């Protein structure tokens, strides 16, 4: 039984470990005792350099990876015990999530809508609405292979939210995009937050975090180094901005790892 809390927690991660077999050192610990919570209407920013464990964490949340240890719940549903239930409640988008070359924008979104089991009439209405909101009506019948990156990202967003999930996971959604497209994506994220969605957002770009996120967690080498709202963090660590805080924390963590020899020889 979860203890009573005033606000419902949409995402709950507690004591999460994830280990991979590594040819070099036997076992590689990608996540080391990670815990955090995200509430509806909130954007949680997972900030960390490349290889920090952001993607692994989000993939566990979206059930495509299984946790080695620890508790992960989405909307009260355990990702290990009922992965299908979790999947129907989340939308997932990353810079890598591609779209099919030989399907039109409409067909793509329709296909995923059907996979989510949305009734046909409701689905058509929903897609029409999404295409209007995201201004995609001019690329409705365009094949994926013939779209620009911006168009592809729009289709990806539409695909992510076609089933109107309460939780949306963005894994570095802007990496590799030009400024205009990145801006559009971030606007879409903000729009979704305003609709009361619970959003978890990973990035290594500080500006995005400062602009969008209600709370952030700084992660490096599989460990959450600091967590809280921006003012809280600024208060606690006495650093002028997120960037300074970030570098300071990462440096400390590096030293810690070097001293203990941990994680390199597990």
């Amino acid at each position, binding site marked *: 039984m979860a203890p009573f809390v005033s606000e419902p927690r949409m995402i709950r991660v507690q004591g999460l470990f994830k280990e991979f077999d590594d040819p*070099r050192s036997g076992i590689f610990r990608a996540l080391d005792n990670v815990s955090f919570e995200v509430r509806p209407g909130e954007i949680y920013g997972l900030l960390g350099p490349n290889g920090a464990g952001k993607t692994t964490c989000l993939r566990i949340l979206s059930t495509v990876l*299984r946790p080695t240890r620890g508790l992960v719940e989405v909307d009260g549903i355990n990702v290990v015990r009922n992965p299908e239930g979790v999947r129907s409640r989340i939308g997932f988008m990353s810079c890598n999530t591609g779209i099919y070359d030989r399907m039109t924008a409409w067909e793509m979104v329709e296909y995923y809508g059907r*996979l989510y*089991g949305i009734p046909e009439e409701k689905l058509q209405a929903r897609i029409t609405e999404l295409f209007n909101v995201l201004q995609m009506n001019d690329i409705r019948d365009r094949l994926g292979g013939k779209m620009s990156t911006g168009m592809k990202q729009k289709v990806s967003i539409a695909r992510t939210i076609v089933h109107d999930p309460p939780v949306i996971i963005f894994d570095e959604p802007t990496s590799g995009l030009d400024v205009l497209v990145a801006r559009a994506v971030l606007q879409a994220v903000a729009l979704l937050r305003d609709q009361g969605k619970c959003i978890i957002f990973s990035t290594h770009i500080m500006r995005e975090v400062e602009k969008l996120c209600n709370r952030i967690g700084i992660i490096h080498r599989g460990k959450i180094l600091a967590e809280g709202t921006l003012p809280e963090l600024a208060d606690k660590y006495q650093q002028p901005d997120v960037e300074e805080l970030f570098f300071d924390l990462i440096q400390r963590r590096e030293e810690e790892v070097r001293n203990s020899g941990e994680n390199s020889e597990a």
Partner: protein
Amino acid sequence: MSWKNIRLVFLREVRDQLRDRRTLFMITILPVLLYPMLGLGIVEMMLTFSEQPRVVVILNADDLPASPALLDQSGIGKEWFENGVEETSKLRVLSERTQKAGDEEKSVRRPRRGEKTDEELLTVAHQLAEKIERLHGLRPADEAPANSNAAAQSNGETSSESQTNAIVPSANEIAEAAATEAKLSAAQDEISQQFGTSGFQVLVIIPKGYRAAMEVMQREIQTSSAATTNINAKTAATRVPPVLVVRNSADDKSMVAFGRVQKALHSWEDAVRKFSFEQAGLPKELQHPARLAWIEVAREEQVAASVWSKMFPALLVIMALTGAFYPAIDLGAGEKERGTMETLLISPAKRVELVLGKFATIMLFSTATALLNLLSMGLTGQQMSAVMSDGVANRVSLDFPGLAPLAWLVILLLPLSALFSALCLALATFARSTKEGQYYLTPLLMVVMGLTMFCLSPAVEMTPLYSVIPVVNVALLLKGLLLNSASSGNLVVYAIPVLISSIGYSMLALWWAIELYNSEDVLFREAEKLDIRMWFRQLLRTKDAVPALPEAGFCFILILMLQFVAMTYMKPDLTRGDPGLTMMRLIVIQQLTMIACPAVFMGVLLTTSLRATFRLRMPSMTAMAIGVGLAVVAHPLSVELSQFLVEHQVFPELPESARQVMGLMKTGDKPTWLLLLVFAVTPAICEELAFRGFILSGLARGGRLAIAVGISSMMFGIIHMIPQQAFNAALLGLVLGLLAVYSRSLFPAMAFHFCNNAIATFHAGEGGGIVADGVFFSRDSDGFLRYEAPLLILCAIAGTLMVVYMTKIVIRDQDAKRRGLVPDFRELADGEEVVA
């Protein structure tokens, strides 16, 4: 599992594939266009090829007998060909006679550019003829009248030694002969080269005085009485000089022309013979004294069936795989490459549903490709045979096979396609990119092609074993069914194992694909290169006290492969020295390098405790005693069992090589210690280290001892290759395995192995000097020591008691271990000597 999702995935994938022009081209357009175009091309090529006439030069044609006449106005008379006019047109015959006729009519064939004129051809032919005749001693350098000389020396038309073979060579002449040989070879080279560039394909040289000699012979036959015909005819016949027919077997064109000329000359010779027989007043029937008649019973559809039975199964297999190949790469690796795999995995559709949807798509394309190809090829064949019905292929009508074989074809195609689709999907899922997918799938294509080629061989027919080998079973069954619909009743029996095993294999492959879709390692493999060195280092670093299961399996496969290599390449040279010693040396080398070495080497590299791996512990005295005692009682049983099986023809007699080894033990010219060293000590140490040591330790790791002992004994049997010995060894392997597991030591097993082999060595020899008393022992007709029923019963009782005792101990230990009372030997190993 929701069918709705499977259908959804299936429909999307099919639509996606249909929109892919490359796939569509490979699967539909290519077969529909390829075969008709290929067929047309072949017909065209055959027509143009056969229309080109080949040049035959006949020298000294004037010396041919007037009747029967070989040549007519245009060339070789059409009556000498089976097909008459048509074949005459394919040979252009050039002789001095046609040359003259041509001159008179002023209608000389105008040569094309680069071609030689008739005069030039004849000149070359004359030069060649001179050289050839000289080389073969038919025309001496001093140009003596050819008639008598040639006739004297020409008992064989190509025997160049005929000049010298009558004289005994002196030492001086041997050197001369070598020089002559060199000269001869140079002359042959020259002739070969000149013939190659001559512009004609066959040269027929009619010797001078041929007609005259022939006439003399005819006359002699005519005048002689029947009683003296033999002698006279013989002398007369040898007086006729040979007609030389020169060809170049390395040249296709020459061979084609030669074939025609040869046929014509043979039928002409028949006519000459007939003429001679008539002259001699002999009955015509004597011409063909053996009276052979050829009768063809194949009907047209059977001829067609035999063509289809070769083409259809091969094509079906290859096309079913090709049809699965490209869609699988696109649906498996392509999905990863595009980045859509992750989004698909995040959708609520279950992994099974995704796999099944994709699998159904690939299978659809696989079956469609196979069927379209067969249809297109069948129709093309039919068309081709219609076009060429009066031409080359008039005997072969390629009508479609009947409905029943076609129905079988479709029924058998389904499991085959399913197998290929699932395999391709699994392999393609394993790949990270489409390029990698092609690397993984190409070996599959090669293996399948190899299997198909094997099935095409006419000697390969369906057997119970083949009926459960994937791909081979379907191809062979189909081949049989298409070949002979009349006897298909016998084959239909095989349909059940074929179908069941095929469906089984495809289910297994499908299960594998689903497993891969559930494995996050496979789905999210990082795009790092496969680093063999890294992998190897990890293998060596993450080792345990005892080998892992795959390591044990690999050890077995390594030993098996080495055995095959040894069988193929290590043939002892028994002609030199003492064959017995050679063979014994070989046996010791084989045991040490191919059985003991791999196991010990792997043990050192891959495990931390040699002691645990090879069970190098001091056994109890009881265990040693059981090892020795069991060997003594097992020997009579094993001898009588294998004799029984041979007598009832369950197994074939021992092959020659094994008999040779047995013979070694028998002859008794080797000292006993040597025999024991080779046949008892070496195998006892080497085979035990490998099979009860490394392999059994690896297999037993999972804790299922019974299965481990069973499998290790089967492996032990397989390594013995010869069916009889394999069976025997497998049975002994069970006992050996039990001994090793019971005693936790290798030494009792070694003792058993040594005693067993030592007794067998004595048994194969004199039988240890045991007197046949008729109650316990007897001797068979070969003097072979045999054991009688009372002894066998005693042995069986003693053996059973020991086996039961050991089994009880093992079960007790297992129970104790399960309750945690006794640490298992992996833990034991940690406290003991550990090899770093």
